[in-house]
């Protein structure tokens, strides 16, 4: 697995797209931090960007990489390696490359700011960690859609639809349901609905840590009320880990059964 991941990383770190993605974060990082000057407001801006962008780029990049390397994969599959090594290695490689862009792209502005001004580093580190985790989750989902269908358009479409569903539509449906059924006790529903969406989970983890109750929103408040800040963070982090294990299990299963 590591041998495959290492070559994917070497291939991707030279790709124009990885570099463009890194530069984007670098520019946005400096612009937001130094133009706004307000550290907690910057952090919330970064949170919004990272929560939307890392899953989106993970989805697009994951599926694009799967299809463009499809023919080379034939050569890899003919080598004396188990299939799971090839696909888990590919997932690892794409996830690490995207994580690298995020860590370096936002990390450098954070470090510069930290060197110049007093700032609590914890939330920034957490934000980067959540971004990397989301990148992995959505790259994994993208790889799964690739493994399910050989039709590039369907695979690309499915991957984007899942992103759209979890990043945008989910919250909309969630809000409509909350409005429609506001006369009923909805806390448990809200709690479960949040646990089932990795993007919402990441938002809640960071906001609970930051303790900005005004931004917690309904789900964050439910988390805090039901589980308390510490347990809330632990439950959410545990669930996020499950979200990372799920693609791994599915990739293994799909890779074992498929014909190439």
């Amino acid at each position, binding site marked *: 697995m590591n041998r495959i991941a290492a*070559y*994917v990383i070497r*291939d991707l770190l030279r790709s124009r797209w990885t570099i463009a993605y890194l530069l984007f974060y670098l520019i946005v990082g400096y612009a937001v931090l130094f133009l706004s000057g307000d550290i907690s407001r910057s952090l919330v801006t970064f949170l919004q960007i990272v929560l939307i962008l890392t899953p989106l780029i993970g989805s697009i990049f994951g599926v694009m990489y799967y299809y*463009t390397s499809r*023919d*080379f994969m034939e050569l890899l*599959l*003919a*080598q004396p*390696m188990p299939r799971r090594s090839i696909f888990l290695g590919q997932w690892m490689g794409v996830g690490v490359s995207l994580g690298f862009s995020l860590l370096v792209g936002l990390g450098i502005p954070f470090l510069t700011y930290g060197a110049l001004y007093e700032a609590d580093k914890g939330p920034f580190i957490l934000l980067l960690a959540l971004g990397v985790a989301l990148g992995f989750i959505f790259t994994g989902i993208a790889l799964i859609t690739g493994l399910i269908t050989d039709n590039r358009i369907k695979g690309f479409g499915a991957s984007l639809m899942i992103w759209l569903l979890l990043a945008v539509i989910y919250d909309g449906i969630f809000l409509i349901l909350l409005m429609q059924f506001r006369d009923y006790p909805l806390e448990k529903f809200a709690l479960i609905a949040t646990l089932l969406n990795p993007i919402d989970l990441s938002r809640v983890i960071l906001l609970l840590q930051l303790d900005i109750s005004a931004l917690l929103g309904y789900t964050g408040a439910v988390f805090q009320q039901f589980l308390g800040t510490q347990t809330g963070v632990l439950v959410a982090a545990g669930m996020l880990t499950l979200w990372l294990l799920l693609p791994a299990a599915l990739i293994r299963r799909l890779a074992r059964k498929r014909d190439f």
Partner: protein
Amino acid sequence: MALVRFHHIHKRFGPLEVLRGISVDILEGQRTAILGPNGSGKTTLIKTLLGMVIPDRGEVLFKGQSVIGKYLYRQEMVYMPQIAIFPHNLTVKELIALVPRLRRQPAHPDPLIERFEVHHFLEKRMNELSGGMKQKVNLVLAFMFDVPLLILDEPTNGLDPIATIELKKLMEEETHKGKTIIFSSHLMEFVQHMAQRIVFLLEGHIYFEGTIEALLHSTETASVEAAVAQLMKQSHAQTQPA
């Protein structure tokens, strides 16, 4: 002796039954060409041996052992795929270093790099190469390992005449060393020159299996091209109502 044995292989992709009970032995130390029109199941058959396609029924044996669900047996074979597409951003040199690392096997690329004149573009990235250059890299990757079985899918694709002549010599040298080669090709002249045995597939069945001499004799023709045309006509006549 049979190095590879396909035993009653069936494979269906959705409504399409690609392999319909194929049984054939690949003899050790021989160059066997797998022929057949597009869609006859050549590549699918080869892929069942490589573990890339899992048969619905039947067994694939390599050195007497079933290969299904295993992967270590592939240390003893190399595969040269038909379409040479490689990671875009790796250089030729890196790719030639990568494959032995993945296989955990020693490789001897230098004589082949010299022979196919790959040294001119060793430092270039794969996406800067022409089709013919990529195919030469593909050849280096396949022939640089010392393994008993080579599987070459359309090895002449995109090669210039000089490289094709070198490939022919190389294939002969390898079988002189006792290696087994399975290959497919659309160039009947190449097949006639290189194959010692022929397996002709049609619509998922084996239509002919044997030496070139036996093929020419049974079809009463003078060339593989004419023999293959004859076999296709025969099958066509059989499937058409009188």
